[in-house]
Protein backbone atom coordinates (compact mmCIF):
# COMPACT_ATOMS: atom_id res chain seq x y z
CA UNK A 1 0.00 0.00 0.00
CA UNK A 2 1.15 3.50 -0.80
CA UNK A 3 -0.34 6.51 0.92
CA UNK A 4 0.00 10.17 -0.11
CA UNK A 5 3.43 11.55 0.78
CA UNK A 6 2.40 13.47 3.91
CA UNK A 7 0.67 10.43 5.46
CA UNK A 8 3.32 7.78 4.72
CA UNK A 9 3.88 6.95 8.39
CA UNK A 10 0.36 5.48 8.47
CA UNK A 11 1.44 2.77 6.02
CA UNK A 12 2.22 0.57 9.02
CA UNK A 13 -1.58 0.26 9.37
CA UNK A 14 -1.95 -1.12 5.83
CA UNK A 15 -3.97 -4.05 7.21
CA UNK A 16 -6.81 -1.59 7.97
CA UNK A 17 -7.02 -0.24 4.39
CA UNK A 18 -10.00 -2.41 3.41
CA UNK A 19 -12.59 -1.56 0.76
CA UNK A 20 -15.79 -3.02 2.27
CA UNK A 21 -17.72 -2.67 5.52
CA UNK A 22 -17.71 -6.46 5.95
CA UNK A 23 -13.92 -6.64 5.78
CA UNK A 24 -13.42 -3.67 8.07
CA UNK A 25 -15.88 -5.07 10.57
CA UNK A 26 -14.23 -8.50 10.50
CA UNK A 27 -10.88 -6.80 11.11
CA UNK A 28 -12.36 -4.97 14.11
CA UNK A 29 -13.85 -8.01 15.79
CA UNK A 30 -10.80 -10.19 15.18
CA UNK A 31 -8.33 -7.59 16.57
CA UNK A 32 -7.19 -7.12 20.14
CA UNK A 33 -8.16 -3.89 21.88
CA UNK A 34 -4.51 -2.76 22.06
CA UNK A 35 -4.25 -3.00 18.27
CA UNK A 36 -7.51 -1.12 17.81
CA UNK A 37 -6.44 1.61 20.24
CA UNK A 38 -3.05 2.03 18.55
CA UNK A 39 -4.75 2.50 15.18
CA UNK A 40 -7.33 4.87 16.71
CA UNK A 41 -4.66 7.05 18.33
CA UNK A 42 -2.47 7.20 15.23
CA UNK A 43 -5.40 8.15 13.01
CA UNK A 44 -6.83 10.76 15.36
CA UNK A 45 -3.40 12.39 15.62
CA UNK A 46 -3.63 13.16 11.89
CA UNK A 47 -7.35 13.41 11.09
CA UNK A 48 -7.14 17.20 11.31
CA UNK A 49 -4.99 17.06 8.17
CA UNK A 50 -6.46 13.93 6.55
CA UNK A 51 -10.04 15.14 6.22
CA UNK A 52 -9.19 18.46 4.53
CA UNK A 53 -6.92 16.45 2.19
CA UNK A 54 -9.74 14.01 1.34
CA UNK A 55 -12.16 16.92 1.02
CA UNK A 56 -10.44 17.80 -2.26
CA UNK A 57 -11.50 14.56 -3.97
CA UNK A 58 -14.68 13.35 -5.62
CA UNK A 59 -15.18 9.79 -4.32
CA UNK A 60 -15.67 8.52 -7.87
CA UNK A 61 -12.38 9.94 -9.14
CA UNK A 62 -9.73 9.28 -6.56
CA UNK A 63 -6.08 8.45 -7.15
CA UNK A 64 -5.13 5.10 -5.64
CA UNK A 65 -3.09 6.52 -2.75
CA UNK A 66 -5.92 8.83 -1.65
CA UNK A 67 -8.37 5.93 -1.94
CA UNK A 68 -6.22 3.85 0.45
CA UNK A 69 -6.22 6.79 2.84
CA UNK A 70 -10.03 7.00 2.62
CA UNK A 71 -10.23 3.28 3.48
CA UNK A 72 -8.17 3.96 6.60
CA UNK A 73 -10.64 6.65 7.68
CA UNK A 74 -13.55 4.27 7.05
CA UNK A 75 -11.82 1.79 9.36
CA UNK A 76 -11.52 4.55 11.94
CA UNK A 77 -15.32 5.02 11.66
CA UNK A 78 -15.68 1.25 12.10
CA UNK A 79 -13.62 1.03 15.28
CA UNK A 80 -14.66 4.35 16.85
CA UNK A 81 -17.52 2.78 18.89
CA UNK A 82 -15.16 0.03 20.10
CA UNK A 83 -12.97 2.72 21.66
CA UNK A 84 -15.46 5.48 22.50
CA UNK A 85 -18.53 3.46 23.51
CA UNK A 86 -17.63 -0.09 24.48
CA UNK A 87 -13.94 -0.30 25.40
CA UNK A 88 -13.91 -3.71 23.71
CA UNK A 89 -13.90 -4.75 20.04
CA UNK A 90 -17.51 -5.95 19.89
CA UNK A 91 -20.80 -4.37 20.97
CA UNK A 92 -21.32 -5.12 24.67
CA UNK A 93 -23.91 -7.91 24.96
CA UNK A 94 -24.65 -7.30 21.27
CA UNK A 95 -25.99 -9.43 18.45
CA UNK A 96 -23.30 -11.49 16.71
CA UNK A 97 -21.80 -9.21 14.04
CA UNK A 98 -21.14 -12.22 11.82
CA UNK A 99 -24.88 -12.94 11.71
CA UNK A 100 -25.54 -9.34 10.59
CA UNK A 101 -24.95 -9.12 6.85
CA UNK A 102 -23.83 -5.96 5.08
CA UNK A 103 -24.48 -5.48 1.39
CA UNK A 104 -22.10 -3.30 -0.60
CA UNK A 105 -23.10 0.33 -0.36
CA UNK A 106 -25.46 1.28 -3.17
CA UNK A 107 -25.31 4.52 -5.14
CA UNK A 108 -21.72 5.45 -4.23
CA UNK A 109 -18.33 3.74 -3.73
Amino acid at each position, binding site marked *: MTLPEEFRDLERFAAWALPTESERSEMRISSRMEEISAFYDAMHAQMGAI*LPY*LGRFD*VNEMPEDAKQLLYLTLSLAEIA*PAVEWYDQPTVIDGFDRRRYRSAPVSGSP
Partner: protein
Amino acid sequence: MSDSQPEKWVRWDTRFPWLGKAPVSIQPYVSPEYYEKERRAVFGRMWLQVCRVEDVPNPGDYFVRELAVLDTSVLVVRGTDGIVRGFHNVCAHKANRVALSERGSCRALNCRFHGWTYGLDGRLISVPDEDGFCEPVKKGERGLRPVATDTWEGFVFVNLGPNPRETLEEFLGEFAACLEGYPFSKMNMYFKHQAEVGCNWKILVDAFQDGYHLRSQHRYSLADMFMGDPRKSFADVKFFKRHRFLSSNGNPAHKPTPTEMLAFVHGGYFSQSVFPPGWMPPGVNPTRSQEWATDINVFFPNMFIQLIAPGWYFVYTIWPLAVDRSLWEARIYFSPPENAAQRFAREYIMITVRDSILEDLSTCENVQANLKSGAIDSFPLHEAELFARHLLKVIDECIHEEERR
Protein backbone atom coordinates in the same frame (compact mmCIF):
# COMPACT_ATOMS: atom_id res chain seq x y z
CA MET B 1 -40.52 30.25 47.22
CA SER B 2 -40.67 30.01 43.50
CA ASP B 3 -43.44 31.84 41.69
CA SER B 4 -43.79 29.19 39.03
CA GLN B 5 -45.34 25.88 39.94
CA PRO B 6 -43.78 22.92 38.15
CA GLU B 7 -46.09 21.99 35.31
CA LYS B 8 -48.09 18.90 36.20
CA TRP B 9 -47.01 15.99 34.07
CA VAL B 10 -49.76 14.28 32.09
CA ARG B 11 -48.61 10.75 31.34
CA TRP B 12 -48.63 9.86 27.66
CA ASP B 13 -50.80 6.81 28.20
CA THR B 14 -53.47 8.88 29.92
CA ARG B 15 -53.68 11.06 26.82
CA PHE B 16 -54.72 7.97 24.84
CA PRO B 17 -57.03 6.16 27.25
CA TRP B 18 -58.57 4.07 24.45
CA LEU B 19 -55.28 2.14 24.24
CA GLY B 20 -55.90 0.70 27.71
CA LYS B 21 -53.48 0.29 30.56
CA ALA B 22 -53.60 -3.34 31.66
CA PRO B 23 -50.56 -5.56 31.12
CA VAL B 24 -50.65 -7.16 27.65
CA SER B 25 -50.70 -10.91 27.14
CA ILE B 26 -47.62 -12.58 25.65
CA GLN B 27 -49.86 -14.88 23.58
CA PRO B 28 -49.72 -12.79 20.36
CA TYR B 29 -45.92 -13.09 20.49
CA VAL B 30 -45.76 -16.86 20.94
CA SER B 31 -48.94 -18.44 19.63
CA PRO B 32 -48.61 -20.31 16.29
CA GLU B 33 -52.39 -20.00 15.83
CA TYR B 34 -52.24 -16.23 16.25
CA TYR B 35 -49.35 -16.07 13.81
CA GLU B 36 -51.42 -17.92 11.20
CA LYS B 37 -54.18 -15.34 11.65
CA GLU B 38 -51.67 -12.50 11.26
CA ARG B 39 -50.35 -13.98 8.03
CA ARG B 40 -53.79 -13.92 6.44
CA ALA B 41 -55.40 -10.87 8.04
CA VAL B 42 -52.39 -8.56 8.23
CA PHE B 43 -49.68 -9.50 5.73
CA GLY B 44 -52.15 -10.98 3.25
CA ARG B 45 -54.31 -7.83 3.29
CA MET B 46 -52.15 -4.79 3.97
CA TRP B 47 -49.89 -2.80 1.63
CA LEU B 48 -46.26 -3.82 2.19
CA GLN B 49 -43.22 -1.77 1.24
CA VAL B 50 -40.77 -3.85 -0.79
CA CYS B 51 -38.22 -1.44 -2.32
CA ARG B 52 -37.76 2.06 -3.72
CA VAL B 53 -38.13 3.19 -7.32
CA GLU B 54 -34.37 3.84 -7.40
CA ASP B 55 -33.91 0.06 -7.03
CA VAL B 56 -35.42 -0.27 -10.51
CA PRO B 57 -34.32 2.97 -12.20
CA ASN B 58 -34.54 1.93 -15.87
CA PRO B 59 -36.88 -0.15 -18.06
CA GLY B 60 -35.99 -3.81 -17.61
CA ASP B 61 -34.54 -3.35 -14.12
CA TYR B 62 -36.02 -5.72 -11.57
CA PHE B 63 -35.93 -6.32 -7.83
CA VAL B 64 -37.02 -9.45 -5.99
CA ARG B 65 -38.47 -9.44 -2.47
CA GLU B 66 -38.86 -12.79 -0.75
CA LEU B 67 -42.11 -12.86 1.24
CA ALA B 68 -41.80 -16.02 3.32
CA VAL B 69 -44.76 -14.88 5.43
CA LEU B 70 -46.98 -15.29 2.35
CA ASP B 71 -45.07 -18.22 0.83
CA THR B 72 -44.14 -16.24 -2.22
CA SER B 73 -41.50 -14.14 -3.91
CA VAL B 74 -42.47 -10.85 -5.51
CA LEU B 75 -40.80 -9.60 -8.67
CA VAL B 76 -40.90 -5.81 -9.13
CA VAL B 77 -39.97 -4.72 -12.64
CA ARG B 78 -40.00 -1.44 -14.56
CA GLY B 79 -41.64 -1.74 -17.98
CA THR B 80 -40.62 -0.14 -21.25
CA ASP B 81 -43.46 2.31 -20.56
CA GLY B 82 -41.72 3.33 -17.32
CA ILE B 83 -44.42 1.81 -15.10
CA VAL B 84 -43.30 -0.23 -12.07
CA ARG B 85 -45.26 -3.49 -11.85
CA GLY B 86 -45.24 -6.38 -9.43
CA PHE B 87 -45.72 -10.09 -10.13
CA HIS B 88 -45.46 -13.36 -8.30
CA ASN B 89 -41.96 -14.52 -9.23
CA VAL B 90 -43.47 -17.78 -10.41
CA CYS B 91 -43.33 -19.14 -13.95
CA ALA B 92 -46.83 -19.90 -15.25
CA HIS B 93 -45.60 -23.18 -16.73
CA LYS B 94 -43.92 -25.28 -14.01
CA ALA B 95 -43.69 -22.70 -11.19
CA ASN B 96 -39.94 -22.08 -11.26
CA ARG B 97 -38.55 -18.78 -9.99
CA VAL B 98 -38.31 -16.49 -13.01
CA ALA B 99 -35.73 -14.12 -11.47
CA LEU B 100 -33.11 -15.91 -9.41
CA SER B 101 -31.07 -12.98 -8.08
CA GLU B 102 -32.25 -10.12 -5.87
CA ARG B 103 -31.78 -7.58 -8.63
CA GLY B 104 -30.82 -7.35 -12.26
CA SER B 105 -31.71 -5.97 -15.64
CA CYS B 106 -33.18 -7.68 -18.69
CA ARG B 107 -35.00 -7.06 -21.95
CA ALA B 108 -37.55 -9.78 -21.18
CA LEU B 109 -38.17 -12.07 -18.21
CA ASN B 110 -36.88 -15.48 -19.13
CA CYS B 111 -37.49 -18.58 -17.01
CA ARG B 112 -34.41 -20.78 -17.25
CA PHE B 113 -36.25 -24.05 -16.55
CA HIS B 114 -37.91 -24.56 -19.97
CA GLY B 115 -37.27 -21.16 -21.47
CA TRP B 116 -40.68 -19.50 -21.25
CA THR B 117 -40.28 -15.77 -21.80
CA TYR B 118 -42.44 -12.92 -20.49
CA GLY B 119 -42.54 -9.28 -21.44
CA LEU B 120 -41.71 -6.64 -18.84
CA ASP B 121 -45.49 -6.21 -18.47
CA GLY B 122 -45.85 -9.88 -17.50
CA ARG B 123 -47.41 -11.10 -20.77
CA LEU B 124 -46.26 -14.50 -21.99
CA ILE B 125 -44.51 -13.80 -25.28
CA SER B 126 -42.66 -16.94 -26.17
CA VAL B 127 -42.87 -20.68 -25.48
CA PRO B 128 -40.09 -22.88 -26.88
CA ASP B 129 -41.41 -25.73 -29.10
CA GLU B 130 -44.95 -24.50 -28.59
CA ASP B 131 -46.36 -27.02 -31.11
CA GLY B 132 -45.31 -29.84 -28.82
CA PHE B 133 -47.84 -28.97 -26.10
CA CYS B 134 -50.64 -31.53 -25.66
CA GLU B 135 -53.17 -28.72 -25.68
CA PRO B 136 -52.47 -25.33 -27.22
CA VAL B 137 -51.01 -22.93 -24.63
CA LYS B 138 -53.46 -20.06 -24.10
CA LYS B 139 -50.82 -17.37 -23.99
CA GLY B 140 -53.25 -14.64 -22.98
CA GLU B 141 -54.07 -16.59 -19.82
CA ARG B 142 -50.56 -17.72 -18.97
CA GLY B 143 -48.83 -14.49 -18.09
CA LEU B 144 -47.05 -13.88 -14.80
CA ARG B 145 -49.59 -13.51 -12.03
CA PRO B 146 -49.79 -9.80 -11.18
CA VAL B 147 -49.61 -8.37 -7.68
CA ALA B 148 -51.24 -5.03 -6.87
CA THR B 149 -48.38 -2.53 -6.91
CA ASP B 150 -48.26 1.21 -6.31
CA THR B 151 -45.75 3.82 -5.23
CA TRP B 152 -45.77 6.63 -2.69
CA GLU B 153 -42.93 9.19 -2.63
CA GLY B 154 -40.70 6.66 -4.40
CA PHE B 155 -41.46 3.78 -2.03
CA VAL B 156 -42.84 0.74 -3.85
CA PHE B 157 -45.66 -1.09 -2.06
CA VAL B 158 -47.41 -4.34 -2.99
CA ASN B 159 -50.65 -5.86 -1.79
CA LEU B 160 -51.02 -9.62 -2.02
CA GLY B 161 -54.76 -9.64 -1.34
CA PRO B 162 -56.82 -10.93 -4.29
CA ASN B 163 -58.77 -7.66 -4.46
CA PRO B 164 -57.23 -4.99 -2.24
CA ARG B 165 -59.97 -3.32 -0.21
CA GLU B 166 -58.10 -0.04 -0.12
CA THR B 167 -55.87 1.80 -2.54
CA LEU B 168 -52.37 2.57 -1.30
CA GLU B 169 -53.42 6.20 -0.91
CA GLU B 170 -56.38 5.22 1.26
CA PHE B 171 -54.17 2.87 3.27
CA LEU B 172 -51.59 5.56 4.00
CA GLY B 173 -54.15 8.32 4.57
CA GLU B 174 -53.27 11.56 6.30
CA PHE B 175 -50.35 9.90 8.10
CA ALA B 176 -48.32 9.79 4.92
CA ALA B 177 -49.83 12.85 3.25
CA CYS B 178 -48.11 15.19 5.70
CA LEU B 179 -44.69 13.73 4.74
CA GLU B 180 -45.15 14.34 1.04
CA GLY B 181 -42.45 16.50 -0.48
CA TYR B 182 -39.69 15.17 1.75
CA PRO B 183 -36.68 14.82 -0.59
CA PHE B 184 -36.34 11.03 -0.23
CA SER B 185 -35.16 10.63 -3.82
CA LYS B 186 -32.17 12.95 -3.27
CA MET B 187 -30.83 10.61 -0.61
CA ASN B 188 -30.12 7.72 -2.90
CA MET B 189 -26.87 6.35 -1.51
CA TYR B 190 -27.62 3.61 0.96
CA PHE B 191 -26.16 0.95 3.21
CA LYS B 192 -28.20 -2.22 3.55
CA HIS B 193 -28.09 -4.63 6.45
CA GLN B 194 -29.98 -7.85 7.05
CA ALA B 195 -30.13 -10.37 9.85
CA GLU B 196 -32.28 -13.32 10.73
CA VAL B 197 -33.36 -12.78 14.33
CA GLY B 198 -34.87 -15.48 16.53
CA CYS B 199 -37.96 -13.60 17.68
CA ASN B 200 -41.52 -12.78 16.78
CA TRP B 201 -41.76 -9.86 14.35
CA LYS B 202 -43.64 -7.72 16.89
CA ILE B 203 -40.80 -7.98 19.42
CA LEU B 204 -38.62 -6.28 16.79
CA VAL B 205 -41.22 -3.67 15.92
CA ASP B 206 -41.66 -2.89 19.61
CA ALA B 207 -37.91 -2.54 20.17
CA PHE B 208 -37.73 0.32 17.66
CA GLN B 209 -40.82 2.18 18.92
CA ASP B 210 -39.87 1.91 22.60
CA GLY B 211 -39.02 5.18 24.34
CA TYR B 212 -38.41 3.44 27.65
CA HIS B 213 -35.38 1.27 26.83
CA LEU B 214 -32.95 3.98 25.72
CA ARG B 215 -31.45 4.82 29.08
CA SER B 216 -30.63 1.20 29.91
CA GLN B 217 -30.32 -0.73 26.63
CA HIS B 218 -28.36 2.03 24.88
CA ARG B 219 -26.43 3.31 27.92
CA TYR B 220 -23.11 3.00 26.08
CA SER B 221 -24.29 4.49 22.80
CA LEU B 222 -27.41 6.58 22.16
CA ALA B 223 -28.73 7.34 25.63
CA ASP B 224 -26.84 10.61 26.00
CA MET B 225 -28.05 11.86 22.61
CA PHE B 226 -31.71 11.46 23.58
CA MET B 227 -31.60 11.71 27.39
CA GLY B 228 -33.66 8.54 27.63
CA ASP B 229 -36.42 10.37 29.46
CA PRO B 230 -39.67 10.41 27.48
CA ARG B 231 -40.99 13.25 29.63
CA LYS B 232 -38.24 15.42 28.23
CA SER B 233 -37.63 13.83 24.85
CA PHE B 234 -41.10 12.99 23.48
CA ALA B 235 -42.12 16.08 21.55
CA ASP B 236 -45.21 14.58 19.93
CA VAL B 237 -47.09 11.28 19.69
CA LYS B 238 -49.78 10.57 17.13
CA PHE B 239 -51.91 7.54 16.35
CA PHE B 240 -53.63 7.04 13.04
CA LYS B 241 -56.06 4.31 12.01
CA ARG B 242 -53.18 1.85 11.74
CA HIS B 243 -49.95 3.83 11.66
CA ARG B 244 -48.22 5.68 14.47
CA PHE B 245 -45.76 8.51 14.97
CA LEU B 246 -43.23 9.73 17.52
CA SER B 247 -41.32 13.00 17.32
CA SER B 248 -38.35 13.10 19.65
CA ASN B 249 -36.08 15.83 20.94
CA GLY B 250 -32.36 15.42 21.37
CA ASN B 251 -30.26 16.25 24.37
CA PRO B 252 -28.88 19.78 23.93
CA ALA B 253 -26.17 18.97 26.50
CA HIS B 254 -24.97 15.90 24.57
CA LYS B 255 -21.17 15.68 24.48
CA PRO B 256 -19.96 14.36 21.11
CA THR B 257 -17.15 11.80 21.09
CA PRO B 258 -13.93 12.78 19.23
CA THR B 259 -14.89 10.81 16.10
CA GLU B 260 -18.48 12.09 16.17
CA MET B 261 -17.04 15.60 16.31
CA LEU B 262 -14.87 14.94 13.23
CA ALA B 263 -17.87 13.65 11.32
CA PHE B 264 -19.81 16.71 12.41
CA VAL B 265 -17.16 19.30 11.60
CA HIS B 266 -15.38 17.97 8.54
CA GLY B 267 -17.87 15.72 6.88
CA GLY B 268 -21.14 17.57 6.67
CA TYR B 269 -22.72 15.49 9.42
CA PHE B 270 -25.73 17.71 10.03
CA SER B 271 -24.69 20.68 7.97
CA GLN B 272 -25.39 19.53 4.43
CA SER B 273 -29.03 20.41 4.05
CA VAL B 274 -31.13 18.97 1.27
CA PHE B 275 -34.13 21.04 2.35
CA PRO B 276 -34.78 24.37 0.76
CA PRO B 277 -33.90 26.79 3.59
CA GLY B 278 -36.59 27.10 6.20
CA TRP B 279 -38.77 24.48 4.58
CA MET B 280 -39.98 21.15 5.88
CA PRO B 281 -43.15 19.16 5.17
CA PRO B 282 -45.68 19.68 7.98
CA GLY B 283 -45.33 16.07 9.11
CA VAL B 284 -41.63 16.45 9.92
CA ASN B 285 -40.91 17.84 13.38
CA PRO B 286 -44.59 18.86 13.56
CA THR B 287 -44.16 20.80 16.81
CA ARG B 288 -41.27 22.74 15.19
CA SER B 289 -39.19 21.99 18.28
CA GLN B 290 -35.83 23.73 18.45
CA GLU B 291 -34.35 20.62 20.04
CA TRP B 292 -35.79 18.22 17.48
CA ALA B 293 -33.65 15.14 16.83
CA THR B 294 -35.74 12.54 15.01
CA ASP B 295 -39.20 11.43 13.89
CA ILE B 296 -40.14 7.77 13.93
CA ASN B 297 -42.86 7.06 11.38
CA VAL B 298 -44.19 3.53 11.86
CA PHE B 299 -46.11 2.22 8.86
CA PHE B 300 -48.38 -0.67 9.70
CA PRO B 301 -47.54 -3.46 9.76
CA ASN B 302 -43.76 -3.67 9.47
CA MET B 303 -41.98 -0.58 8.17
CA PHE B 304 -40.26 2.35 9.85
CA ILE B 305 -39.14 5.55 8.19
CA GLN B 306 -36.94 7.35 10.68
CA LEU B 307 -36.13 10.92 9.75
CA ILE B 308 -33.07 12.55 11.24
CA ALA B 309 -31.48 15.89 10.53
CA PRO B 310 -31.47 16.85 6.84
CA GLY B 311 -29.31 14.71 4.57
CA TRP B 312 -30.07 11.21 5.78
CA TYR B 313 -32.82 8.88 6.97
CA PHE B 314 -33.30 5.21 7.53
CA VAL B 315 -35.87 2.59 6.72
CA TYR B 316 -36.40 -0.58 8.71
CA THR B 317 -38.56 -3.42 7.52
CA ILE B 318 -39.29 -6.51 9.56
CA TRP B 319 -40.43 -9.65 7.76
CA PRO B 320 -41.87 -12.60 9.67
CA LEU B 321 -40.35 -15.97 8.82
CA ALA B 322 -42.16 -18.00 11.51
CA VAL B 323 -43.87 -17.21 14.80
CA ASP B 324 -40.44 -16.96 16.46
CA ARG B 325 -38.15 -15.93 13.59
CA SER B 326 -37.94 -12.72 11.57
CA LEU B 327 -35.83 -11.09 8.93
CA TRP B 328 -34.54 -7.68 9.95
CA GLU B 329 -33.60 -5.25 7.18
CA ALA B 330 -32.18 -1.76 7.63
CA ARG B 331 -31.44 0.65 4.83
CA ILE B 332 -29.60 3.81 5.82
CA TYR B 333 -29.98 6.46 3.11
CA PHE B 334 -27.78 9.50 2.53
CA SER B 335 -27.38 12.22 -0.01
CA PRO B 336 -24.33 11.19 -2.06
CA PRO B 337 -21.09 12.55 -0.58
CA GLU B 338 -19.70 15.58 -2.38
CA ASN B 339 -16.16 14.59 -1.47
CA ALA B 340 -14.20 11.85 0.29
CA ALA B 341 -14.29 13.57 3.69
CA GLN B 342 -18.08 13.44 3.63
CA ARG B 343 -17.84 9.76 2.68
CA PHE B 344 -16.05 9.23 6.02
CA ALA B 345 -18.80 11.10 7.89
CA ARG B 346 -21.49 8.90 6.31
CA GLU B 347 -19.59 5.75 7.27
CA TYR B 348 -19.37 6.93 10.87
CA ILE B 349 -23.10 7.64 11.06
CA MET B 350 -23.90 4.26 9.49
CA ILE B 351 -21.60 2.38 11.89
CA THR B 352 -23.10 4.05 14.97
CA VAL B 353 -26.61 3.24 13.77
CA ARG B 354 -25.55 -0.35 13.06
CA ASP B 355 -23.90 -0.90 16.43
CA SER B 356 -26.94 0.54 18.22
CA ILE B 357 -29.13 -1.93 16.31
CA LEU B 358 -26.85 -4.79 17.39
CA GLU B 359 -27.59 -3.77 20.99
CA ASP B 360 -31.31 -4.22 20.33
CA LEU B 361 -31.28 -7.45 18.34
CA SER B 362 -29.58 -9.61 20.94
CA THR B 363 -32.14 -8.52 23.54
CA CYS B 364 -34.98 -9.35 21.14
CA GLU B 365 -33.71 -12.93 20.89
CA ASN B 366 -33.33 -13.23 24.66
CA VAL B 367 -36.89 -12.03 25.17
CA GLN B 368 -38.34 -14.51 22.70
CA ALA B 369 -36.39 -17.42 24.18
CA ASN B 370 -37.62 -16.47 27.65
CA LEU B 371 -41.25 -16.23 26.59
CA LYS B 372 -41.16 -19.99 26.11
CA SER B 373 -40.11 -20.50 29.72
CA GLY B 374 -43.58 -19.84 31.09
CA ALA B 375 -42.08 -17.59 33.76
CA ILE B 376 -44.27 -14.63 32.80
CA ASP B 377 -47.55 -14.42 30.94
CA SER B 378 -47.93 -10.67 30.40
CA PHE B 379 -45.99 -7.44 29.92
CA PRO B 380 -46.73 -4.46 32.20
CA LEU B 381 -46.11 -1.38 30.04
CA HIS B 382 -44.55 2.01 30.73
CA GLU B 383 -46.07 5.15 29.24
CA ALA B 384 -43.23 5.28 26.69
CA GLU B 385 -44.09 1.75 25.51
CA LEU B 386 -47.61 2.74 24.48
CA PHE B 387 -46.88 2.11 20.81
CA ALA B 388 -46.83 -1.63 21.50
CA ARG B 389 -50.47 -1.41 22.59
CA HIS B 390 -51.43 0.29 19.37
CA LEU B 391 -49.73 -2.36 17.23
CA LEU B 392 -51.56 -5.17 19.06
CA LYS B 393 -54.87 -3.30 18.85
CA VAL B 394 -54.60 -2.76 15.09
CA ILE B 395 -53.66 -6.41 14.49
CA ASP B 396 -56.65 -7.54 16.54
CA GLU B 397 -58.89 -5.30 14.45
CA CYS B 398 -57.48 -6.78 11.23
CA ILE B 399 -58.11 -10.31 12.52
CA HIS B 400 -61.66 -9.48 13.60
CA GLU B 401 -62.40 -7.91 10.25
CA GLU B 402 -61.07 -10.97 8.45
CA GLU B 403 -63.17 -13.29 10.61
CA ARG B 404 -66.31 -11.28 9.94
CA ARG B 405 -65.95 -11.88 6.21
